[in-house]
């Protein structure tokens, strides 16, 4: 077991790679009641074309299958695993993103038992025709719920407008139609390809004894056998730099319009330190341009174009990166224009060192605050680890950022042809 000490943050992280390839991290947190553990596979909604384990041909699977699999894994021959967790005083959950599927529990007692339950249920799939059919009703309602949610519609709408080919533009849950094609055989095929321990990471954070926990995991894994893993082959999508469409308007039964401006990063580093630098620099730049202390925020607020829902964020995953700026607004066209103007007119020359320092300070404080949260630590650590960087490098990387890096991002990304707009507007009353 390796021990990594983060002096300034006063944290100690323990790491070991199991013989079957599983990465295990433990972060002891004294003083907390809660232990939070996530068991994550590097498999998400964008992995819709791949070579199944033991095969040689690329295969396309129905949209939404990674998320469907996430739901189904909870069900076993003798009932569902939620029951098991609650008997042990834990609450369990799971989520699927573009590139990851995570299973988790949090509990303040019976940590060893709950951890055993978590690892075992994720590593013992059980799908039947009958339960697969039944799940279609539940997920159908999950999809409907998001259909009625204007924030979700505008969010996915802008991604759809940015991407021409890449499956990031497909809703994570798929559609009622696409999930109707899911079968138990397909679920097993996806499971076997992506749930190999060498494609997974286990993270435990809480008031735990790292030696005992690590031994428990070694013993658990030693009891199980897995086939030899080969490198997973995913389809590589050819995605142009340019957006798919300039503007999308979605009429809905709403009173207030919503508007998001999306920005597409033309290329991103697949992994490593450069990736972390790029992601943090992009976020610092957005904060500088649109944060509450920026001149633009003040002006847009005074003009009545934005309110407290105004947000900005940059997301970067394995092979794509996009930013979003916007929120509820009384005038979606005017807001789109204003935001575009701010983006297109920025250059590094207009930023001062002291302004950059201020945004860095803000980000450092926000990072410290997020370390109060075991959920944040486990989820973000895993995300970063899959990208071959460490969450705990965030502060030094933030401190090292330069105006030139901001300028470069603006030159690469703030181009008319890489910007798309999506608006949700009130439907005409009948």
């Amino acid at each position, binding site marked *: 077991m390796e021990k990594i000490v983060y002096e300034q943050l006063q944290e100690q992280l323990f790491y070991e790679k199991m013989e079957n390839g599983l990465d295990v991290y433990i972060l002891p947190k004294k003083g907390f009641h809660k232990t939070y553990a996530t068991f994550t596979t590097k498999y998400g909604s964008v992995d819709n074309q791949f070579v199944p384990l033991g095969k040689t041909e690329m295969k396309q699977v129905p949209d939404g299958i990674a998320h469907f699999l996430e739901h189904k894994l909870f069900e076993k021959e003798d009932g569902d695993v939620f029951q098991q967790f609650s008997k042990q*005083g834990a609450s369990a959950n799971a989520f699927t993103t573009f590139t990851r599927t995570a299973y988790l529990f949090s509990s303040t007692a019976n940590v060893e038992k709950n951890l055993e339950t978590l690892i075992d249920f994720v590593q013992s799939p059980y799908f039947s025709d009958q339960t697969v059919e039944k799940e279609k009703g539940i997920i159908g309602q999950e999809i409907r719920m998001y259909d009625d949610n204007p924030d979700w519609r505008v969010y996915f709408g802008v991604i759809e407008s940015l991407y021409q080919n890449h499956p990031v533009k497909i809703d994570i849950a798929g559609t009622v139609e696409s999930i109707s094609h899911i079968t138990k055989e397909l679920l097993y095929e996806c499971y076997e390809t992506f749930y190999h321990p060498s494609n997974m990471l286990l993270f435990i954070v809480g008031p735990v004894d790292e030696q005992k926990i690590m031994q428990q995991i070694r013993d658990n894994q030693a009891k199980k056998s897995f086939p030899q893993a080969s490198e997973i082959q995913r389809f590589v999508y050819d995605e142009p730099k340019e957006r798919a469409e300039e503007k999308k308007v979605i009429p809905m039964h709403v009173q*207030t319009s919503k508007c998001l401006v999306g920005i597409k990063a033309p290329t991103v580093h697949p992994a490593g330190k450069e990736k972390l630098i790029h992601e943090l620099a992009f976020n610092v730049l957005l904060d500088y341009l649109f944060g509450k202390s920026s001149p633009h925020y003040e002006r847009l607020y005074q003009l009545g174009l934005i309110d407290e829902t105004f947000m900005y964020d940059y997301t970067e995953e394995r092979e794509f990166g996009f930013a979003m700026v916007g929120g509820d607004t009384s005038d979606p066209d005017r807001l789109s224009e204003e935001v575009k103007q701010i983006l297109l007119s920025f250059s590094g020359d207009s930023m001062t060192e002291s302004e950059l320092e201020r945004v860095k300070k803000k980000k450092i404080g926000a990072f410290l605050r997020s370390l109060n949260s075991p959920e944040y630590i486990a989820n973000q650590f895993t995300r970063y680890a899959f990208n071959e960087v460490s969450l705990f490098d965030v502060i030094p990387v933030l401190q090292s950022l330069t105006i030139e890096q901001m300028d470069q991002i603006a030159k690469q990304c703030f181009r008319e042809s890489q910007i798309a707009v999506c608006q949700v507007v009130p439907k005409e009353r009948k």
Partner: protein
Amino acid sequence: MINEKITTIQNMNVHTIPTDKYKTNTLVWKMKAPLTKETVTLRALLPYVLQSGTAEYPSVKQLRTYLDELYGATLNVDLSKKGESHIITIRIDVANEVFLQEKIPLLRKALKLLSDVVLRPALQDGRFVDHIVAQEKRALKQRIQAVYDDKMRYANLRLIQEMCKGEPYALHANGELDDVDRITAEQLFQYYKKTLEEDEIDLYVIGDVQEETVLEAVASHFLLPNRTVRASVKETVSTKTRDKVNEVIEKQDVKQGKLNIGYRTNVTYEDDDYYALQMFNGIFGGFSHSKLFINVREKASLAYYAASRLESHKGLLMVMSGIEPSNYQKALQIIEKQMEAMKNGDFTDEEITQTKAVIRNQLLETIDTPRGLVEVLYHNVVSKRKRPIEEWLSGADRVSREEIVRVAGKVELDTIYFLTGMEGAE
């Protein structure tokens, strides 16, 4: 378990909770007054005006720039209601300088800033600044309207409006749309002065702090006016019973129907039966092992979510679920059947044990966050009944099957609200 010290300074209760769990220190300011039609909108506007500028930093930009300088200290406000009290909350969360290379007294600065926000706002001619008030009125209107676009929140709001018609609880914590325009900067300022004189005020300081240092800083920065506080007045909670169930069906252009059901529990936070009510809710619909989740979602496959929650200070139990519009009767029947099962004591010892374990877990997790801890402790301020954390933990654990059945007997169906699609089947 929790080391909470309460000191009264100028009729304000200062709660200090020292702990080294966090990387930040948290300040939470709470002001409580009765929920009334006359004040609800003024009160909903006030904290947003306060957070828009102080005498020293008189604009959003200046104030937010200063917060950035304090290593991204966060300042945020919100409104809530507990029973028939209307509560303003203002929070500042600031990094603990121990984790920074630069040593600056961030906690002291944050306390000073909080006192500036609540006591030394940006003024113009002895009242709030007109353009700030105008902007925040506009934002408030958007905030009130936003509820209509989030169907889950909307259905919940409509259920409460229908169920609590004529009671203060029917008012929304964000105020009434029709009352916003009439508010003037002068009127709001008068109201503000009154709140400082009359509201019940609690300040929580949680983190790597020493009690004496905090109290000393509070005493020097927080100079409140002469206060005639309605010391710990408990608002009387109105209850009513219906002779007939109220059924409200509303149509909108939605794909998913929202079925929300309100019950009167006739038990509130101060009653001895409170823990039994928590157990009841846990077995019925509070968790993913509960009857609603198992029967509506897992067995009948009708919904993605089907759950219940309590409003403990008002004595309400609310069921919420998202279903296909055509499944209205089916879902309703299943939910009613689960309620019947509860009343008949038709639940296993295993369900009881499971629920006790999960309630305990939930409480311990809540108090792991500064924000959750304050919310749990604040129940004691809102209610006459003081329950230490230890009692919360043992309370649910001691509840017997008979007590759960007895509480179930008190629960009365009041209102069924269904938001359905335009061509929704009846």
